[in-house]
């Protein structure tokens, strides 16, 4: 009896990994999905914090893809290990703080460890040669295979015909002729294949699946490192960079102002860790202060918070300031005029 071969597919929640998995499933391979959570992932619920995105489906696209394909999905937290990828990428960064080549190598390496531990035979990714400027080029795709340690156990079904045969192909576990020859940045072949499979409700995030490809986010991360005087972060740091309006009026502190109810509710959860401000005389946002702020700094922060409250036109706004472990004190401040908040304060 032929041995049932098993593969693990890296599932991002996007179309390419979905199609690559479907191709391999159709060749009779048992496939399970794996998804690595780095803390920088762009997933529905980070956006769902903001009310204006509530019309979007609140789903994790990787889970949704797995369910559509009828496969299991293992979501693995790699936050600590991933720090080294972000902070010390051997192959450098892309346009922003995105270490795409190191990232892909890291994820394939983790997948390789997983198949070794779980008795699976090979790894599947949705990579397409020429699709991405850093990690999916003819010259970098072998780097991922080599540096991850997966070598010829890494199968890219969507562009396999442009690559040397992998072990699953050589050993006859799968038929190479049934694999594809996609190439380049055009999405047409993927869209056509999706239509052939009857898939039409898939995610196609414009900026990829990672916040590190986002210019504004990368800028906030760089600012965080500069303000702290060290290149390091905790999960809360990188989560908070996704939420609110960030203003740094002085090098020693930053104000994070909720932009709407959903963000205010999320920031509420951090009140016990941060000095926080809220307008009292008028409805307004919740704001956190990150850094070591003096009383004078906090009055400045209060003026900023007042600026984003319903009292922005008032002569005076009452703002409560609560330092960690202390009782709130109320200050009366004149809100900043709309054009009086220097642009360079916005991170």
């Amino acid at each position, binding site marked *: 009896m032929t041995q049932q071969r098993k593969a693990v597919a890296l599932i991002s929640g996007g179309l390419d990994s979905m199609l690559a998995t479907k191709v391999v499933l159709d060749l009779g391979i048992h496939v399970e999905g794996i*998804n690595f959570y780095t803390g920088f992932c762009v997933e529905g*619920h980070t956006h*769902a914090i903001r009310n204006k995105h509530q019309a979007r*489906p*609140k789903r994790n696209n990787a*889970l949704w893809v797995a369910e559509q394909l009828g496969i299991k999905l293992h979501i693995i937290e790699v936050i600590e290990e991933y720090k080294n990828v972000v902070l010390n990428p051997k192959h450098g960064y892309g346009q922003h703080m995105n270490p795409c080549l190191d990232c892909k190598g890291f994820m394939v390496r983790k997948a390789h460890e997983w198949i070794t531990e779980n008795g699976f035979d090979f790894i599947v990714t949705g990579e397409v040669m020429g699709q991405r400027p850093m990690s999916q080029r003819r010259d970098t795709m072998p780097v991922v295979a080599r540096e991850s340690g997966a070598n010829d156990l890494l199968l890219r079904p969507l562009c396999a015909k442009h690559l040397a045969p992998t072990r699953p192909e050589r050993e006859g576990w799968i038929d190479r002729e049934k694999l594809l020859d996609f190439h380049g940045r055009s999405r047409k072949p993927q869209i056509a294949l999706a239509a052939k499979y009857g898939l039409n409700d898939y995610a196609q995030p414009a900026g990829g699946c990672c916040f590190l490809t986002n210019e504004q986010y990368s800028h906030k991360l760089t600012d965080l490192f500069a303000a702290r005087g060290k290149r390091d972060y905790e999960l809360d740091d990188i989560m908070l960079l996704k939420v609110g309006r960030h203003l740094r009026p002085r090098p020693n502190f930053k104000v994070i102002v909720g932009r709407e109810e959903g963000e205010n509710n999320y920031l509420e959860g951090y009140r016990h860790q941060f000095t926080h401000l809220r307008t009292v005389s008028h409805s307004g946002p919740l704001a956190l202060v990150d850094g070591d702020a003096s009383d004078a700094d906090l009055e400045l922060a209060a003026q900023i918070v007042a600026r984003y409250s319903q009292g922005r036109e008032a002569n005076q706004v009452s703002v409560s300031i609560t330092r960690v472990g202390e009782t709130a004190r109320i200050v009366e401040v004149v809100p900043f005029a709309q054009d009086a908040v220097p642009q360079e304060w916005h991170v």
Partner: protein
Amino acid sequence: MSHHELNARRLLCPMPVIRAQKFIESLSAGDTLDVVCTDPGAKNDIPAWCRIHGHRILEMKTVERDIIITIEVGPRAP
């Protein structure tokens, strides 16, 4: 059969799913787990994860800001 509770408050998805996945590894078929979370996304994600892994949602309710999802652990895959 035993009943357990997992505090996943303030965690954004997929962290509640990851914590539930990890917790359930130590449970047996028929055990139940209350996952207490605050991210509304968990109301979709935890049931989706349960469906693909063969676990059952017994109840989902909201108590003030908490979302409490009760899972019955399914049989282990062979």
